[in-house]
């Protein structure tokens, strides 16, 4: 059980988050909910990326007075590269969200609604 959790828990969580986000994006009509859904998908992706660089006995990839990242010639730290990618991805997600929210604000100003179906009707 422990092994299963170690192997799968983060992957399961991340993919579930992606699934939840997708479900929201695909079914909810409110633009803000869709944006939230996109955000959840992003969180899931980020969790997934961190998860693949992690292993149960890893230490954090920061040299400190107490932590040794290398033991017996093997690196025992968690993989730092996915973490740095996640840093980047988070900021990009932030940018996308900010822009999406702004577009949402403008849509509400101009159409008077946030329902994607009503917007579509208004366009025709």
């Amino acid at each position: 059980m422990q092994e299963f959790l170690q192997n799968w828990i983060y992957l399961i969580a991340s993919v579930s988050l992606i699934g939840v986000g997708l479900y929201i994006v695909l079914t909810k009509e409110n633009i803000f909910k869709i944006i939230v859904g996109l955000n959840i998908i992003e969180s899931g992706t980020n969790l997934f990326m961190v998860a693949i660089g992690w292993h149960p006995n890893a230490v954090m990839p920061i040299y400190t007075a107490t932590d040794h990242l290398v033991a017996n010639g093997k690196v025992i730290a968690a993989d730092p590269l996915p973490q740095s990618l996640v840093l980047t991805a988070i900021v990009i997600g932030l940018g996308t969200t900010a822009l999406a929210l702004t577009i949402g604000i403008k849509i509400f100003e101009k159409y008077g609604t946030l329902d994607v179906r009503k917007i579509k009707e208004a366009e025709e």
Partner: protein
Amino acid sequence: MSIFNNAALLIGVPLLFAFSIPLFGLISKQLTKWVTLFVIGFNATFSLYILLAHKYPAVVVMGNWVPPFGENLYIGPVAAFLVSVISIIGLLIAIYNLWAIKLGDVTRFSVLFLMFTAGASGIVLTGDIFNLFIFMEITGISSYALAAYGPRRRALGGAFKFLVVSSIGSTLYLLGVTLIYTQLGTLNIAEIAARINQTTPGLLTFAGILLISGLAVEAELFPFNGWVPDTYTGAVSGVSASLSGIAAISGVYALFRIAMTVLGRDGAYVFTYGKLDLMTVIAILATTTVIIGELSALSQKNVKKMLAYSSMAQMGLVAVGFSIGSKLGVYGGIFQLVNHSIAKSMLFLIIGVLAAAGLGEKVENFRGLWRRSPFLSLAFTIGAFSMLGFPLFAGFWSKFAIVGASIQRGGWYDFVIGLVLFASIVEAFYYLRIVTYIFSSTEVKAPKIKVSLSPAIPIFVLAVAIIAIGVYPNFIGNFSMQSAGEFTHKMTGYVLNVIPTIVAH
């Protein structure tokens, strides 16, 4: 590995000026458009220098860490050629923007447009699979914002659709990158390309599908291209022109860089590693895109939307060319990509000028345009004929090559190209409907349309370029051919130029 670090300026200079444009904006808003113009002009000059002085193939090492440890830009024939095209078209659209973009937040628009062009160049230049994602996002975010610009509320709807679909696409791409990373522990395109068959086939297939699906959004392949019609129609014409002229180039490039160089297996025809041949998948998608795009455009009354559907279909045609996987097919694909960018951006610019003159976007509004503006009518006709692949126009040679390559490959590609040619007949119908409207009816007593200098320059240059390529295809053709070699011979064309000591496993 020859190193040409100066080419980092292709990214560095636009970035420097993008950050400083708000400061210029404090002096004068209109000045910012000129700054954009000059910076893209610098990029165009510099990339043309690289292309014509044959500085490629070369690697640009970033941060003094050689690939595969650090990040790098790779300037092969493809990058040198496509960056030149992107920058030149960007420059022309920037000239158009001098006239077209007068209201709203001009400063921010200039920033976004500059980085849109630079980001598209970055996609083409970069040699790192994650850096590609960053540049995709740079181009993507700037294009969402640009697409939402303008007084029309449709723009917002289009931009939002683009944003949603594209975000999902980039998420899928990122997941694919991550899966590849779990297998090979590297993000460098050259190293991944050399070691791709060390991965487990099932995972590779899944990762490949995620990557291709993510990139197909920007490359406008069905079913990932739902955003295309609304976004193109809603955006102001300058933005539609840059989306179809610049973003499309980088989108298709990214798709086939991944499919052919990263996942591909060299041969007379490129296939991909993994359980499923993704090139075949792309071919199916591309054919579907062509047919759906052309048929949707057929009954479209709005010219701008029609052009949007046509863009989609043309991207499908480009993808058909690439997906053949032979040198000839890729040659046709690249050539068609460039021709399409030239012609389609010109058509969108014309629509922009006409819209400013109070002419609507309906097909019927084009009736008798010849009397009102011979210049725009001729330019539109030239663009339309180039899209249709008529001789003396640029599109002829590329379409010729794509059809030739398909039939050369034979097998089920005969069927593919049959469908594509049928779709082309449909395309001929709806383009010629407009052309015949333009030249028909004399009784319109509407005033002449005055085209001011700033939009006239890009339209004129692009129209002349179409005829020049049509009459003398060798110049562009040679570069397309070199580029095709880079795609179809991934070890000699790409990997060994980046990491000379790598061994294909």
